[in-house]
């Protein structure tokens, strides 16, 4: 008896201990559920946008390019009336239903824009009623983000912004008793238990359980985890209302994958699959999203449209059977197509190199944690048109070179930077031939010898002393030896292995003569040249050696762009910028990155160096460009080739864009690369695709244009054979007249100047 009593007592103790352990376990879970659910805020990535395309009468852009931008924005063609986010084309006109968007400077409502094209320009922009619009912004293309762990992307929605039919469909398919159960469904539980007996652990999860699973637990499938999930679901239900649970679920749910970016929540999924706000989802569209809950990969409507359609219709049927939608709604939805937008996938970004630059500039002002969680909106300077042109030109040319083995073995790499010369905005950045690769970014991180790209700095330094140097000052391109203590003698060779005797300064630059340049640079002083380089905006310290004059210095393509930027802007230095504005996720402005200019050089020598660099293209090493651009564009630039032809460069500018192209091998292998044969074609392809504006010489009061007879470098006139018009600083032009001058020529030139005056009057009239 006593023994039986003892057993009973032990049993009771054991039971109590078990109950206590369970209580502790449940309490522990309770604390966890409450802490995490309450403290939990979804981490939202910083969203990065391209520049908005601003349409106005007179804009130089082709209709095809505007359509490409609209497609990239996910605009449908044709679209349905009453909605936004579509366009219609009729001949040379576009009707665009522009979406609403919150810009840095305020919200713009959805509206109709009618654009008329005339050749490669916009002729007129009107609103829906035919009234002229001075300026119409298209919302900027999203170009990626800075993502939280796991590259989770989401756009938060309130339950009130989700259409009722979506919730009905979700409940009909996933959890019919959601509004009445306590976190679990006993019958489903029994079924689940039975399935354990048969060895197959499966389903029966309520919405609450699914949320708990995604929120707190790892995806392993054990009995213990199933039990924990059950307890936590009950606790969640005990503490929170159905609305809170449902809203969190709709934001948490995983609904697909876009390369390395995970699509979470109904808000983002509505954009990702339909290019819409969740509130605008139709019965059929929301049913498709609900269908994907069970298996976003399995029912991916873009990859498995048949399977997705079948499951969507199942969702619709179940919703109809529960009476949540009418028979009419059901019939209509069932006959609808999938309606998925054709938007190309982009992963975390289609332009990783540019986003990397943006990220680095942001890190100076923001915490990494905030960038990955606060949902900041970053408005950048990227011009998708320029970016695509740069990527294409680089990839195509490299593929061609590799195939022809024109420059040694395959494996050639490259980088491109494009900027707006007047503002310093970076419009495009390509970090390698595979522009989608998220790794080594040659445009920012590859520091390579720049070769002859440094020469403009040498000549600019010289031309800043008008009493000593003009564009026609003869330079000696004879053999040159530079002796300095503690270093071997330096004897620069010319590219063609010849010396050219006395040549005018502008010709020495145009033909990139090394001996003449080395002599000139050492004459004016290496330190002075380095000072010019610094004033041009290069922050890197260059070694004060004579060899630096011929480009032994290493720079990244972005640094080269900064240096040439200052030249292209007539001596006004603007730090290169990739960001315009930052706002909070609600659109409250946080910061602007304004245009900044600093006058680094007086205007006169800038006119001269720019004219000399135009000479490089007109008659020098970059003559090849004439096959790409008409002479009227007057592009200015410089080729660069380094020792043993390891690096090929071309840097130059037109009236509205500056671009730097570098080609070379990552292992610094000697190629057979030259700036003119390898880099220049890439540059030419890019500019030809971008409708460049002619480059007008900057104006300066102290500069006069003088006809020069190239035979003798004396003052000529327009009637002299081969005469060129060159800028001179006041008083520095030759006075002696060439024998070729004539009375007729003088008369013609007087007329010529009148025409010039008329032109500038017209220019003023048209504000050009």
């Amino acid at each position, binding site marked *: 008896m006593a023994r039986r009593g003892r057993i009973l007592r032990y049993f009771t103790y054991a039971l109590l201990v078990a109950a206590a352990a369970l209580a502790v376990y449940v309490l522990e879970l309770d604390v966890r559920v409450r802490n995490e659910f309450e403290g939990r805020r979804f981490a939202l990535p910083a969203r990065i946008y391209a520049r908005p395309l601003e349409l106005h*009468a007179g*804009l130089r852009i082709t209709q095809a390019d505007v359509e490409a931008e609209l497609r990239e924005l996910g605009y449908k063609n044709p679209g349905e009336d009453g909605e936004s986010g579509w366009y219609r084309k009729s001949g040379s006109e576009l009707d665009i239903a522009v979406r609403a968007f919150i810009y840095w400077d305020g919200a713009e409502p959805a509206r109709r824009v009618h654009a008329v094209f005339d050749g490669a320009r916009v002729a007129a922009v009107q609103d829906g009623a035919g009234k002229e619009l*001075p300026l119409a912004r298209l919302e900027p293309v999203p170009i990626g983000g800075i993502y939280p762990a796991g590259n989770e992307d989401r756009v938060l929605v309130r339950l009130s912004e989700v259409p009722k039919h979506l919730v009905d469909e979700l409940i009909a398919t996933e959890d019919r008793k959601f509004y009445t159960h306590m976190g679990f469904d006993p019958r489903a539980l029994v079924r689940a238990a039975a399935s354990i007996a048969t060895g197959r652990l499966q389903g029966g999860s309520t919405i609450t359980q699914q949320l708990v699973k995604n929120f707190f637990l790892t995806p392993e499938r054990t009995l213990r985890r199933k039990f924990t999930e059950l307890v936590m679901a009950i606790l969640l239900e005990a503490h929170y209302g159905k609305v809170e649970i449902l809203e969190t679920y709709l934001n948490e749910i995983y609904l697909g994958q876009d390369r390395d970016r995970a699509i979470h929540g109904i808000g983002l999924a509505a954009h990702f699959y339909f290019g819409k706000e969740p509130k605008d989802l139709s019965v059929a569209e929301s049913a498709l999203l609900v269908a994907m809950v069970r298996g976003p990969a399995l029912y991916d409507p873009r990859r498995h449209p048949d399977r997705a359609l079948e499951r969507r219709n199942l969702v619709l049927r179940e919703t109809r059977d529960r009476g949540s939608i009418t028979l009419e709604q059901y019939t209509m939805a069932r006959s609808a197509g999938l309606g998925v937008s054709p938007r190309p996938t982009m992963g975390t970004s289609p332009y990783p190199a540019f986003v990397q630059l943006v990220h680095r500039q942001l890190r100076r002002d923001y915490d990494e944690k905030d960038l990955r969680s606060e949902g900041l909106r970053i408005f950048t300077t990227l011009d998708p048109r320029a970016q695509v042109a740069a990527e294409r030109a680089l990839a195509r040319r490299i593929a061609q070179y590799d195939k022809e083995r024109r420059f040694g073995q395959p494996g050639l790499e490259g980088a491109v930077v494009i900027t707006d010369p*007047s*503002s310093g905005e970076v419009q495009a950045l390509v970090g390698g031939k595979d522009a989608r690769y998220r790794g080594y970014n040659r445009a920012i991180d590859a520091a390579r010898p720049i070769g002859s790209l440094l020469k403009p700095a040498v000549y600019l330094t010289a031309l800043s002393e008008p009493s000593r140097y003009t564009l026609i000052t003869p330079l000696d391109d004879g053999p040159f030896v530079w002796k300095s203590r503690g270093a071997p003698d330096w004897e620069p060779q010319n590219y063609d292995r010849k010396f050219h005797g006395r040549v005018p300064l502008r010709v020495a630059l145009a033909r990139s003569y090394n001996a003449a340049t080395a002599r000139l640079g050492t004459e004016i002083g290496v330190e002075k040249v380095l000072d010019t380089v610094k004033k041009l905006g290069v922050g890197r310290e260059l070694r004060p050696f004579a060899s630096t004059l011929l480009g032994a210095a290493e720079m990244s393509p972005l640094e080269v762009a900064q240096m040439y930027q200052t030249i292209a802007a007539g001596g006004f230095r603007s730090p290169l910028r990739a960001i315009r504005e930052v706002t909070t996720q609600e659109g409250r402005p946080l910061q602007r990155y304004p245009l900044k200019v600093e006058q680094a050089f007086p205007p006169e020598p800038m006119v001269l160096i720019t004219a000399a660099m135009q000479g490089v293209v007109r008659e020098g090493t970059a003559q090849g460009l004439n096959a*790409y651009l008409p002479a*009227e564009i007057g592009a200015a630039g410089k080729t660069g080739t380094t020792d043993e032809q390891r690096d090929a460069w071309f840097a130059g500018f037109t009236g509205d864009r500056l671009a730097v192209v570098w080609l070379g091998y990552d292992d610094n292998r000697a190629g057979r690369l030259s700036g003119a044969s390898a880099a220049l074609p890439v540059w030419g392809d890019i500019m030809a695709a971008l409708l460049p504006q*002619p480059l007008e010489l900057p104006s300066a009061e102290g500069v006069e244009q003088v006809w020069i007879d190239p035979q003798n470098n004396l003052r000529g006139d327009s009637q002299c054979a081969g005469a060129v018009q060159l800028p001179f600083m006041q008083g520095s032009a030759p006075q002696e007249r060439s024998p070729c001058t004539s009375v007729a020529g003088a008369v013609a030139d007087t007329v010529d100047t009148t025409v010039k005056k008329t032109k500038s009057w017209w*220019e003023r009239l048209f*504000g050009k």
Partner: protein
Amino acid sequence: MRRRPLVFLFLILAGCASAPEQGPAPAPVEPAPPPSVGPRENIAVAGLMESARTDAAAGRLPAAAASLERALRIEPRNPRLWQQLARVRLQQADYTQAESLAARSNSFAGGDAALRAENQRIIDESRAARR
């Protein structure tokens, strides 16, 4: 192979750009300006300049600067835009920028003496304030 028509197109465009020398009607959509009105400006630029003026007058200087930068993206060689931006920076007591921007305006001012005089005033005022 596709290069040829493109180049051709540029030639046409370049032709248009220098056409005014020969006579009026540079493009069908750009009617000759009424003689009494001042220089004809792109209406987009005119609109942005106007809103910049309104914003600056109301003390909304960052907004004014933003509008002017937007206008400069359309007409980077318009000296009036650079000047107005210089004036906004002066109002913001950013004297270094005010001076540089006025100098930038000068580089596009050509023979416009009034414009140059106003730029000089901004430059002088900025220098005086910095001292």
